[in-house]
């Protein structure tokens, strides 16, 4: 199976460390992949509210590009991109008109049969279940796995295990020697797209998430979405104001945590790029 990775905008900007960790983990586990050639923005959170056609065509161009390049699988680390691509793929496959429309705008016939993976399920199915990976540096930490919304909703589209109480990240964490906690906010919204337009709300929502994680004894948060990461990591000053206390809990990307357990150097995993320092690892 030929595998392509679609980084999307965030993974080349605000979430570089995510891409770095994804790449190095894949390399370490010698999984071959190529970046989708000449990729474009997926339209993310904005397009589908503003221009329906655009929100269909942008992702389909990415899918087409990946398929034209002879790929059968497409890994999309960014939860938002994943959500868009999956949505559009479903549209194309279920609705002939959409398919026709998209094909004409791309002027090529798009099949959209490529398998689109989010990072979490990809790691479980294609790594932990296939290879027996040795985690030389088990991550002996209490972790709170935070899924956010884009990864798990809408269930009909993303088909991600149990939308209200997903378990996959926890399973992965156990594998790498960490101890996932049971908490209440794993699928609550972090404020996502409001991060620029209405930081207040973002801070408030993110604060609740962090607070619950801390109260329940988590030593770090594990995420799989650049947006969540930004909000939880970057908005600390405001969050601390709201909670009226220091909040030092670090927020790691799933792949960073795995990287650490694989014994990859923190620097190579981009752990030094975080606002909240990831100490004593």
């Amino acid at each position, binding site marked *: 199976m030929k595998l392509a990775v679609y980084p999307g905008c965030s993974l080349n900007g605000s979430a570089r460390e995510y891409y770095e960790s994804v790449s190095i983990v894949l390399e370490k586990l010698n999984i071959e992949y190529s970046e989708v050639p000449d990729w474009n923005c997926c339209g993310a959170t904005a397009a589908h509210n503003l221009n329906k056609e655009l929100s269909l065509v942008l992702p389909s161009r990415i899918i087409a590009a990946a398929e034209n390049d002879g790929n059968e699988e497409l890994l999309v680390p960014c939860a938002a991109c994943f959500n868009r691509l999956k949505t559009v793929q479903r549209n194309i496959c279920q609705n002939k008109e959409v398919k026709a429309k998209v094909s004409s705008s791309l002027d090529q016939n798009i099949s959209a049969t490529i398998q689109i993976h989010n990072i979490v399920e990809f790691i479980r199915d294609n790594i932990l279940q296939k290879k027996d990976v040795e985690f030389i540096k088990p991550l002996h930490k209490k972790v709170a796995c935070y899924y956010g919304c884009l990864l798990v909703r809408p*269930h*009909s589209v993303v088909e991600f295990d*149990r939308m*209200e*109480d997903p378990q996959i990240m926890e399973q992965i964490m156990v594998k790498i020697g960490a101890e996932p906690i*049971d*908490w*209440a906010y794993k699928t*609550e919204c972090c404020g996502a797209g409001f991060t620029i337009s209405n930081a207040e709300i973002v801070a408030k929502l993110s604060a609740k998430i962090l607070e*619950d994680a801390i*109260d329940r004894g988590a030593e770090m948060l594990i995420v799989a979405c650049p947006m969540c990461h930004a909000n939880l990591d970057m908005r600390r000053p405001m969050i601390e104001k709201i909670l009226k206390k220091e909040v030092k809990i670090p927020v790691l990307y799933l792949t960073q945590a795995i990287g650490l357990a694989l014994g990859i150097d923190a620097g190579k995993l981009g752990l030094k790029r975080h606002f909240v320092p990831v100490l004593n690892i």
Partner: protein
Amino acid sequence: MARIGVFICHCGENIGATVDCAKVAELSSRLEGVTYSVDYKYMCSDPGQTLIKKTIKEQNLTGVVVAACSPRMHEPTFRKACSEAGVNPYMVEMANIREHCSWVHDKGEATTQKAVDLVHMMVEKVKNNKPLQSIKVPVKKAALILGGGIAGIQTSLDIANAGHKVILVEREPSIGGHMSQLSETFPTLDCSQCILTPRMVEVAQNPNIELISYAELESLEGFIGNFKAKIRKKARSVDEKACTGCGLCTTKCPSRKIPSEFNENMGYRTAIYVPFPQAVPNKPVIDRENCTYYKIGKCKICEIVCPTKAIRFDQEDEIIEKEVGAIVLATGFNVLGTDFFPEYGYGKYKDVITGLQFERLASASGPTLGDIRRPSDGKIPEKIVFIACAGSRDPAKGIEYCSKICCMYTAKHAMLYKHKVPNGDASIFYMDIRAAGKMYEEFVRRAITEDEVHYIRGRVSRVYEKNGKLIVKGADTLLGGMPVEIEADMVVLATAGVASQGAEALAQKIHVSYDTHKFFTEAHPKLRPVETNTAGIFLAGACHAPKDIPESVSMASGAASKVIGLFSKSEMTREPLIAIVNRSAPPVYSSCAGCFLCISACPYQAIEKEELKDHRGKIMKTVAKVNPGLCQGCGTCVAFCRSNSIDIQGYSNEQVFAEIAALLNNDTV
């Protein structure tokens, strides 16, 4: 040689105005086999019928064609009239020259000609008709009732009181079903046990009712009026005759920490136990999974203490065979598990319970003797939240349908809570309040106004524990979707009502159809709600769909009256318009090649295998046989049979061929 009489009806102007009836009569008389034809103003009128009868006698007719209105209207009338005059009713056909001719075409040649054609068609059909005798099926006047909940109890009592034998089979050690678990009942708040247990006792004492508890249906053969049921009576390990029900054994049994099913696992019972004090029969059962003796071979304390030496450790399952004429399914319902609602934390948090568990808490005979106490620490909850539609009306995760009873019992629960904890605080998250029923809406209003229950219209997104409290996060859609957070001490989920487990297997065992939710399906959604598609098997109560007590009871009485009706004669008569597999002389015996694919085509399981034997009893051939008791005469098997070995009386292949030919070759007239 056929001697057919044709009777053309004017139906006043209805036919006469557009069709030249006299001409139709005149032309019909020329048809081969027609010895007499006449037109008359009103054939269905008394003189009309007399005219037919008179002619039959005078002309000694062998068959009759009445050209008038639709057979769906007057076929019975004319068939009856003719049989009174000595012509077999199935030698009478009607040509529909009103609905299908005079009323839908303009006056004229063509219309008259069509009337003639229709008459011609029926004349040719009648020539191929055969005199038929209506089918008589003997009826064994005993009923088998499966399920001893309130529905089963009601049906049994009604049938038994009408003087017929009843065999009531209950899966559990005692009858009573879910109703016996309930505390008070809406909308009257009278105690469930108080109204149920007298009925249970009646069952036990009624000489016409044979109660077989702790038993299940093993297999069923036969058909309406003539079923043969095998019932597996599970080993109770107690001799019911010897046992006096003193209960000493249950007090002495050492293994006492077994979760009690009756208390929805909120209390404990012993290994030898009676599910609840008022159980009928009031005889204990040994639960062999948990009995020390069956586990390690030692103990036998119950045997030692039993004053009447009624314990039978070596007792085995017993198969009881019964012959019955009718069966009523009253297997009831179950409450849905909540595992697909992880966000509500059922099973994770002790104080998130189901409605049925709350019933036990509220019940005076329950584990807390009627106090509302948290399972976790026995504290009385100051704040309680009820979540309605926990699974119902939720195609995404639960079930599409409305469980119907939850709105009412949730209101009741909140009320009971307020009565027991007057200064407590009760909130209900709901989608809609469905309180359609006598005094139901008033009941809900009372909960809201008098008992100050907070009704919050909206769904709950998550329940989680935080410093000893259950945080209930939801939305109030009447306040524009405003988020609501309640710190509750206890959460009650109104879990959906679903088909009782084993319903599907049972349905397949006795060949009744069931819907996608495993509820048994009625023969007709409006007009035959208590019958199944298998003749002689009826439905009562929640095994058909979620129902409250009054509904279950009325349905039960409905089913009972159907059974009593069936039992009112020692034979039942059925229309002989049924399929028949041909038989012929040896060596062929029957042209049926025995592929038996017709069996899968029959909607009524009316086709069975029959072994044809020679005079020495050697099996010569196995062929299909249609059971006249079950066949409803749809004819699907007839059209399906490749060797045309099945034909259907009244719509036989020969009749149809004759009709087609007659209809299309009108050059003869």
